[in-house]
């Protein structure tokens, strides 16, 4: 087994690779006897339903009238309505916040992938003395608790002036730029690590022939390596979109202007000081979850391999 990260082998959902590996392993039903197999299936199925339940519960009740559930209890059926969504959308101002989230997420993910693919390329292509240290600098940054850096970052951002056309707050604080930069700085470590491992699996001969053709380092990176690592980039992009979209800590502390908050933070608008309508909150939660769930279902394979890329080495 190679010690390299090889995405095809790490995917839980068998694709081409599984066709050759799986049957010999499990053709005879594995090591499980049949009755025990049934017991296991039942247990797993029950657990899976339990796991789905919270989301389903939120979904069902987001379509129910508050007055009806108050009068008849949540265990009743009925009171169907879509008004929670209408009210949540307008009260939570989700149109604006979705736009904010996109304005942060898309640039941050692109920037992260671009910067980390450059570092990864250098780490994989050349063998400098500082390679390992470099990887350490990026990876450790990824693992540090963000709270530990909050105070200096917060204060620094307040001092950095931005022209009005970049941010109406006049400084990095309360601007999307702040979130883009912070998210990029934090996520680069993981992406660099995964990409450089992936790039190391590329055969070296391709660079040798490129050099013979007189291709510059930049062209080798951009026209040779980048197209070849597209699967890894796709996996990481999917994962990063979810992470940056879900990012809560920096968004909470660096953005204090209500109209600049991203989706998740905007959910607070639906909570009253003394009273909260949980059906409304459920509708809001579904709205917030929807973009990332859509990405998840559309690109499930990429998502899973992205999550497991960095964590399974050999």
């Amino acid at each position, binding site marked *: 087994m190679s*010690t390299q990260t090889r995405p095809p082998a790490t995917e839980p959902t068998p694709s081409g690779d599984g066709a050759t590996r799986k049957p010999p392993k499990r053709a005879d039903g594995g090591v499980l006897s049949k009755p025990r197999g049934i017991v296991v299936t039942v247990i797993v199925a029950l657990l899976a339903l339990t796991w789905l339940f919270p989301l389903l519960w939120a979904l069902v009740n987001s379509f129910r009238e508050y007055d009806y559930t108050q009068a008849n209890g949540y265990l009743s059926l009925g009171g169907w309505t879509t008004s929670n969504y209408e009210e949540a959308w307008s009260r939570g101002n989700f149109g604006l916040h979705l736009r904010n989230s996109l304005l942060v997420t898309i640039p941050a993910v692109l920037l992260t992938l671009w910067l980390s693919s450059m570092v990864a390329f250098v780490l994989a292509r050349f063998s400098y003395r500082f390679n390992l240290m470099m990887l350490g600098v990026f990876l450790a940054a990824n693992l540090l608790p963000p709270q530990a850096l909050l105070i200096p970052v917060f204060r620094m951002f307040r001092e950095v002036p931005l022209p009005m056309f970049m941010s109406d707050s006049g400084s990095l604080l309360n601007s999307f730029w702040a979130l883009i930069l912070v998210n990029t700085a934090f996520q680069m470590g993981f992406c660099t690590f995964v990409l450089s491992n992936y790039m190391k699996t590329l055969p070296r001969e391709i660079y040798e022939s490129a050099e013979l053709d007189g291709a510059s380092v930049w062209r080798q990176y951009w026209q040779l390596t980048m197209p070849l690592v597209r699967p890894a980039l796709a996996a990481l992009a999917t994962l990063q979109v979810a992470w940056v979209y879900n990012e809560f800590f920096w968004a909470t502390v660096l953005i204090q202007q209500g109209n600049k908050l991203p989706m998740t933070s905007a959910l607070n608008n639906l909570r009253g000081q003394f009273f909260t309508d949980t059906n409304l909150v459920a509708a809001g939660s579904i709205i917030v979850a929807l973009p990332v769930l859509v990405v998840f279902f559309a690109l499930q394979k990429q998502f899973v391999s992205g999550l497991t890329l960095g964590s399974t080495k050999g």
Partner: protein
Amino acid sequence: MTGIELPQSKESPGAPPRGREKKLGARDRFTVIMMVTIPLLLVLALVWVPALLSVVLSFGKWNGFGDLDTIEWVGVQNYHDIVTIYPAFWPAIQHNLIWLVFLFLVPTVLGMLIAVLLDREMRGSRFYQTAFYMPVVLSVALIGFIWQLFYSRDQGLINEVFGTQVDWYGDPDINLWAVLVATGWRHTGYIMLIYLAGLKSVDASLREAAAVDGAGEVKTFFHVIFPVMRPINMIVIVIVVIESLRAFDIVWVINKGRNGLEVIGALVAQNVIGEATRYGFGSALAVIMMLISSVFITLYLRNVFREERRG
């Protein structure tokens, strides 16, 4: 490695091959330098310099409004105050520890078990996998909101089913556990996914050999599969520790980390964007977090570097 000849692909410890780099022309060398320097500057400016500044600030008293010369240097006073008179500190440490132990005992073990169960031919295995890791794509803050449908005192499902009047998020004796269950819901899927990927890479012949030897299911797991997953266990340990140290999102959306939900991450934030801005004090808390995490980051990096060198 693969069968391909890789003359200079890896750094052999001691004598790194330097020949190739000398061949780079001036332009290429400039490209390489830029490719590394720009990302490096970003990570230094936004992670490493702030980390260092946190350490420096932790020895001072500063409300953050005046210039740098309004900082009053007080030595280790902040640390002393934190451990002696700051009422939220020890509860927070305790809660982070409970968080850690809980994540290990319940979601991690459960996730591992589910992975082992799913790692066999089973009808609908893909569906089950999806069910378990769907919560992983949701943000932890959002999960706090979703679970309110269970935990709310007047409108929650739990109270309705059991006819109780418990405020699950509000009662300081139980809200930590309510939060942990919600967090565990998400964490289980994550751990499952990581182990599932690891199990796929366990050599099928190893299992077969064990089966031929007449080793039972349980024995096979502990003697064949578990040892092969050692590097993954290491990564899972680091993930769990870091996650429990970072705990912030869900307690912040519930009550900003007060009243039974004190965690270190929230305490730092309270000292910056709360009513009182105490930068020195908050920094000292941040440094404590950093110290704890650095132990595990070092462990993790050592693991990674060992693999890199071997590769």
